[in-house]
């Protein structure tokens, strides 16, 4: 049972076909802990394992929040929002430690019946915090809310679902009709921010009634929130903590100090400069996860001088990627190749790695008539490293005779974003097609490179890929799309950064994992970690 489930999980990502997938139920029946499933998936496991113990208050420090912190089962704007969302809300599908979709979530199956039709069936007997049983109506309400409120984070990704085309088949089954073929619905349903909420749900200060392992006790935006154990949680035995407290920090140094001083049990995103300090501390462990986040430099392909593909190619040859990883990430990342979605089963890892070649860059610039180019490089303190990467790249560009004036503008995302010729941005991990939907086609909300160029067959490939249900054929199309971006695209993607978190040795159960969220998805909503 165990092995079979695991195998199914491993294949699920590329194989959502007409065939019904019925996995996950067995795990529930067998009462297996998520930890053992993850271990079977073969990711690195560093922490000491002991039998899980009940009790205690887990205190987590997170930076990046403020008064705009929110609690919403389907929305986030800040890092602490992510940490809070996963306490109370769960998704239909989940990504495992290898960033493969699995049915360890609320759904017992999610099936693409036809290119433009999906069927969702939720597990039996899952209850919300208030005792109400999860059913088809809640799924329909949740999806309707995501689709109709444009301020929600997952709104753009589910664009192909027809709001009026959702049908309740029985108490636990919902059928989705799409406006057009789309094979990425499963990916969207696995995104942590697309949580399932009960009928009538409203964001905080509405009641935060979810299916998750902890109930919300109190919440003060920008300061802290307190959560207590859901005694009625559907995964037997979990969670282990009595309480979870999530505390906002403004200053990353203060956050590290609080961990060093024993006021916290875990923190996310240690500043790279302090990793050695934390490592030197005998009672602390650093958790390094090979994340798929990336900080691109974006060249708008329809704005001069980047209208000339040679200038784009020259800029890509300017980047000394290893030096950028060393300088900007203090080595906590992997060199990238101007392509995103490294965990996608169809990632084009066979394309040759690009290296710095200043001579070639100069000659390309010369042939484009852009020798001794001078221009602005726009950035902001939107995410850690965004200013640094601009400074380092500007320094490297001098080697090719290019002068880049770094502009650090606090209103960057307010006034100028998407209108700049050369700028820096940040992205988390997504699979390829969902990422394209977010940032690389004209209708995408954040198409910062203004991709694709006129006359390119990229868009028709994208439409084909979304409609293709055969994973092998889809991979071939995706490969072709990635080749186009690799040769002509506007992104310079120097690295994928690791997520570097830290926790006290008092806490057991943390494992490194690929993915978007810190601390192995915060210990899967703080349910697979314990004191002991």
């Amino acid at each position, binding site marked *: 049972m165990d092995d079979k489930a695991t195998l199914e999980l491993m294949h699920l990502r590329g194989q959502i076909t007409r065939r019904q997938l019925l996995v996950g139920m067995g795990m529930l029946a067998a009462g297996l802990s998520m930890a053992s499933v993850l271990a079977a998936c073969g990711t690195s496991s560093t922490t000491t394992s002991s039998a899980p113990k009940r009790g205690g208050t887990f205190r987590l420090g997170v930076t990046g929040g403020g*008064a705009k912190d929110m609690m919403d089962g389907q929305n986030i704007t800040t890092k602490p929002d992510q940490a809070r969302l996963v306490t109370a809300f769960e998704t239909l599908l989940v990504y495992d430690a290898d960033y493969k979709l699995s049915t360890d979530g609320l759904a017992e199956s999610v099936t693409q019946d036809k290119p433009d039709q999906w069927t969702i069936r939720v597990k039996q007997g899952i209850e919300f915090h208030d005792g109400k049983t999860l059913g088809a109506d809640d799924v329909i309400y949740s999806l309707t809310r995501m689709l109709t409120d444009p301020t929600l*984070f997952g*709104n753009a990704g589910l664009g192909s679902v027809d709001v009026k085309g959702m049908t309740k088949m029985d108490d636990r089954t919902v059928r989705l009709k799409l406006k057009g073929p789309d094979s990425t619905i499963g990916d969207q349903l696995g995104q942590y921010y697309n949580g399932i909420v009960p009928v009538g749900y409203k964001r905080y200060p509405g009641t935060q009634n979810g299916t998750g392992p902890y109930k919300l006790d109190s919440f003060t*935006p920008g*300061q802290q929130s307190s959560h207590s154990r859901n005694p009625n949680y559907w995964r037997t035995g979990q969670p282990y903590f009595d309480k979870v407290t999530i505390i906002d920090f403004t200053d990353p140094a203060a956050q590290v100090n*609080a961990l060093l001083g024993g006021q916290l049990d875990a923190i996310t995103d240690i500043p790279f400069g302090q990793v050695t300090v934390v490592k030197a501390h005998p009672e602390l462990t650093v958790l390094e996860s090979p994340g798929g986040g990336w900080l691109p430099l974006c060249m708008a392909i329809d704005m001069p001088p980047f209208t000339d593909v040679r200038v784009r190619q020259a800029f890509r040859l300017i980047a000394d990627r290893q030096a950028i990883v060393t300088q900007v990430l203090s080595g906590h990342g992997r060199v990238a190749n101007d392509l995103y979605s490294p965990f996608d089963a169809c990632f084009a890892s066979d394309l040759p790695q690009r290296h710095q070649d200043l001579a070639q860059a100069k000659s390309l610039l010369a042939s484009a008539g852009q020798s001794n180019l001078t221009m602005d490089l726009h950035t902001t303190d939107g995410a850690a490293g965004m200013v640094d990467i601009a400074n380092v790249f500007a320094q490297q560009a001098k080697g090719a005779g290019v002068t880049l004036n770094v502009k650090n503008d606090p209103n960057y995302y307010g006034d100028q974003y998407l209108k700049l010729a050369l700028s820096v941005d940040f992205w988390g991990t997504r699979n390829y097609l969902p990422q394209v939907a977010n940032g690389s086609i004209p209708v995408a909300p954040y198409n910062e490179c203004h991709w694709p160029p006129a006359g390119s067959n990229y868009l028709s490939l994208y439409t084909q890929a979304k409609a293709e249900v055969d994973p092998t054929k889809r991979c071939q199309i995706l490969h072709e799309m990635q080749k186009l971006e690799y040769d002509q695209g506007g992104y310079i993607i120097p690295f994928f950064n690791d997520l570097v978190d830290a926790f006290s040795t008092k806490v057991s159960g943390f494992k490194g994992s690929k993915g978007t969220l810190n601390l192995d998805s915060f210990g899967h909503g703080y349910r697979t970690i314990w004191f002991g």
Partner: protein
Amino acid sequence: MATGQSGSANALQPALIPGGPAQAARPGSATGISPVWGFILRRLLLGIVVLVLVSIVVFVATQALGDPARAILGRSATPASLAALRQQLHLNQPVVTQYLTWAGGLLHGDAGNSLAAQEPVTKLIGDRIVNSAVLVLCAGLISIPLSVAIGSYAALRRDKTFDVVTSLSTLVFAALPEFVVGVSLVVIFATTVFHVLPAVSLIPPGGRPWDNPAGLVLPTLTLVLAVTPYVARIMRASMIEVLESDYVEMARLKGLPERVVITRHALPNALGPTFQVIALNLAYLAGGIIVVEYVFNYAGIGGALRDAVSNHDLPVIQALAMLIAGLYVVLNLLADIATIMVTPKLRTRL
């Protein structure tokens, strides 16, 4: 008579004798003798005028901050989500209407809703004001007597060892940025050398800073170290000026014992400046607290202001600016009144 005094009484002058020349404030040449209440009333009116001007400045300046809807959504802004949020926030009214609504609300204790948190500003910053006030009061209660004592004693022992040592060490401490002092204290007492005090001040929502007094120690100490040198130096200068004044000289010439000279003649006159020092000190602490709150993750108005500025959260910025500016005006007013009440020379001039 020294020429120095005419300039020094200047600040009273517009208040006491409208438009009158500076000399009017000199003893014996005062022409517009008015009762203390008249003075207080006039200061009060001026304070209100200043506050109204401040409110206009605050409102106009914050309008320049740009579109708050974009600032709130940040990168996740799409045209659709922007339009929806603008609709939600009622950002389409004319500016004048917005000002009148806002100012009217303030008079009723309603500062509007925070754009970012979407809840009343008063609820958002109410606890933070209490927290900051506690920190400022603690720092004030320690640093004011301390700096007054150091400054006065240094003035009495002018150019002696104590004076030289304190004047040099206050110079050094005044030159150190607050965050250097704060970070150093954390390293020494919380994380690296000793582990005796908490590194950050975590105040649970609904809790009060005094629930966990240990958490107050380091931030208070940082503020005390930042403010004491500054005030001690002013105090020393004020005390020297008073000690060298004609009336103190006269008292000495009359053969009064030094103790009597200091307590009966010097101290009452030095008290006036002391009130000024206290007012400025508290006003400075209220503004200068930003850095200290940042270092210690202290949930006060400094953190709220920094956060509001980066969120372009206009109502919160406006409320905090009005609060801090109002505090300054009120403290100055109180100090002026207190000065008039305790300083015999000034009182007789009125």
